[in-house]
């Protein structure tokens, strides 16, 4: 029998299904609820968190700067840009600065292309068994001139949040 046919039959009808069944039981064993963590740099005071919608995964969290007059509200984004406009409608004002923190950088709008690229990269890394942290972006609304968003971006980058 041709070697290619042996590979095809073995891989697609035997090894692949067995691997999925094994992965399924491994996932059940490792199942745990993942809640977002709201750790922050030492110069920020955590003000609390609450759901921002009646239903859905989105939570609003707030921080105030210890030494400078400024505060920030954040919403963690998971799938895509769907939750990135919540803060723009909830928190409006002349001195409010809106944006999105992702991969240690601050963007004016949700970076769809870069986020998708990173999502594909992370899925591939997890497929080949590498330890990866789930991808999150953070929408923010900042008041004051303390540049809290940039400080949070650096912190998230270092802590791999």
């Amino acid at each position, binding site marked *: 029998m041709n070697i290619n046919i042996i590979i095809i039959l073995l891989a697609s009808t035997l090894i692949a299904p067995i*691997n999925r069944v094994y992965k399924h039981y491994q996932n059940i064993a490792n199942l745990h609820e993942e809640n977002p963590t709201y750790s922050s740099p030492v110069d920020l005071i955590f003000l609390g968190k609450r759901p921002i919608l009646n239903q859905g995964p989105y939570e609003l969290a707030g921080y105030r700067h210890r030494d400078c007059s400024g505060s920030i509200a954040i919403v963690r984004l998971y799938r895509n840009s769907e939750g990135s406009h919540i803060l*723009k409608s909830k928190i409006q004002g002349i001195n409010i600065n809106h944006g999105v923190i992702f991969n240690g950088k601050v963007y004016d709008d949700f970076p769809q292309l870069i986020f998708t690229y990173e999502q594909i990269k992370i899925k591939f890394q997890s497929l080949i068994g590498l330890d990866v942290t789930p991808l999150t972006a953070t929408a923010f609304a900042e008041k004051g001139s303390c540049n809290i968003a940039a400080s949070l971006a650096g912190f998230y980058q270092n802590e791999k949040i």
Partner: protein
Amino acid sequence: MSSISNKSIFYIFPIVAWASAVNALLPSLLNTLSKPFSNAVSHGFGHNYVLWLSLILSAKVLLNTNLSHKSKVYLPYLSLLSIFLILPSATTSWLICSMACVFWFLSFRETSDKCKFEKASILILLAISIREPVCQLLLSLFSNEILRFDAWASGSILDIIYGNTVIQNNLIHKNGGHSLLILTGCSALSNISWALLLWMSLTLYIHSTLKTCDYWRVVGVIFTVLVINCSRLALMALEEDYYRVLHQQGGSMLIETITLVLTAFWVKWR
């Protein structure tokens, strides 16, 4: 790759394509099987009922046809795809299934009507397998634009019914009422993809081919689903009571059923 006369080797195409589909279905199927059986049935064993129906139609067409002669078998490519199939990811499996279908389709030697049933079966399987990766990619790359369009269309309907509607990105505000944030799960794109899959599967099952004159029916399907989905979202933005009814499982199942029944009207039955 020389011409191959041993017909049994042609079974390698359906084996790779269907094994990929089964491997793509397995993760969600296993998840639902760990729940009570009635629960698993009501959730379509982790998959949409349209997907099961399309798979049955594709298999039925394939089982009623004799596999035709092929000019190429692409064995090294198929074995490479099979190796990638070991990676335990549903999306990867669907992509491999699509590629196997493409190789299967390219392998035909004859262009006669003899292989039209086999081609119809491949096209249904290709449509099933390409749907999920394409939807995922679109909803990641263009989520802003897609959800904004949904909000604009639903907001426009709400404006006709009620007036005083403000649309802000993917948010619909009813002045003096509540706001509705349109999330990925509520987008019309997913419903359109299921409706198109249903339409294509039924059309290929009945006629074994898609004609150019059928494509206006595709426009009809898209328009029907858009109207139903946007009307649902507009009603959900109108009153919280409507939101609760239409967002619960019973309400969303009713809307889904109406969508699929109306989609079936766009199929040319004779």
